[in-house]
């Protein structure tokens, strides 16, 4: 299988713990919000409506990246922009166009779509970042 872009080993080593910590923080945060919603504990409206939509794409893309890195056996790959874009577009269409038509639980919201893309952009920028070299 081919088509990956390589990042430097330094880059991976530099971000391994930062990436893991961020990923865990996002999982904990989104799970907490979901549990609070299920328990009907009042939380700020913007957190209730938008936070999980913003965290969705970074979590999904991180899982995809980890699985593909495991499959490839290389830990220096990163996802190209068009794959991130297509996956985000798929999520936007699935959650904001398809599911609202088949389930009353879901409603279409353009802000959710913007948040999906914002989260994906954040993930892309994070994976693109290079470590600061010490003089």
């Amino acid at each position, binding site marked *: 299988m081919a088509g990956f872009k390589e990042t430097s080993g330094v880059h991976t080593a530099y971000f391994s713990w930062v990436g893991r910590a961020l990923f865990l923080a996002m999982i904990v945060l989104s799970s907490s919000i979901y549990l609070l919603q299920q328990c009907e504990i009042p939380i700020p409206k913007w957190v209730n409506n938008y936070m999980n939509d913003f965290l969705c794409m970074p979590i999904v893309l991180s899982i995809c990246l980890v699985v593909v890195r495991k499959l490839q056996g290389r830990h220096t790959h990163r996802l190209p922009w068009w794959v991130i874009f297509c*996956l985000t577009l798929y999520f936007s269409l699935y959650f904001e166009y398809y599911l609202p038509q088949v389930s009353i639980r879901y409603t279409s919201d353009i802000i959710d779509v913007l948040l999906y893309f914002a989260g994906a952009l954040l993930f892309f920028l994070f994976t693109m970042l290079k470590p600061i070299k010490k003089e």
Partner: protein
Amino acid sequence: MESVTYRRCQACATINENRDYCKNCGALINLSLKRQIERERSEKKKTEAKRLQEPDAITKFFNHIRHHRNPIIRGLGRIVYSVWVVIFGIGAFLAYLIGYIAA
């Protein structure tokens, strides 16, 4: 009359009569037998390495259709074999899972 072969064990210096293995410590003292075992081991290692290098049936199949004469089959093979299909598969599964949990 049968010939008698004396072999000195390199490990414990015991003199052995018509033996491949030392009667004292059990070490292999027959040099030709030792070489034969080493040769067999080396050949086995090479065969194993060759077997591991060879692609499995699925890889062979995809390699075949990726270089197929028909451009449609070739294109389909390249799409299916691409790692991005795996990513989209994982993404689609996660979307379904999130949708199922949230509903």
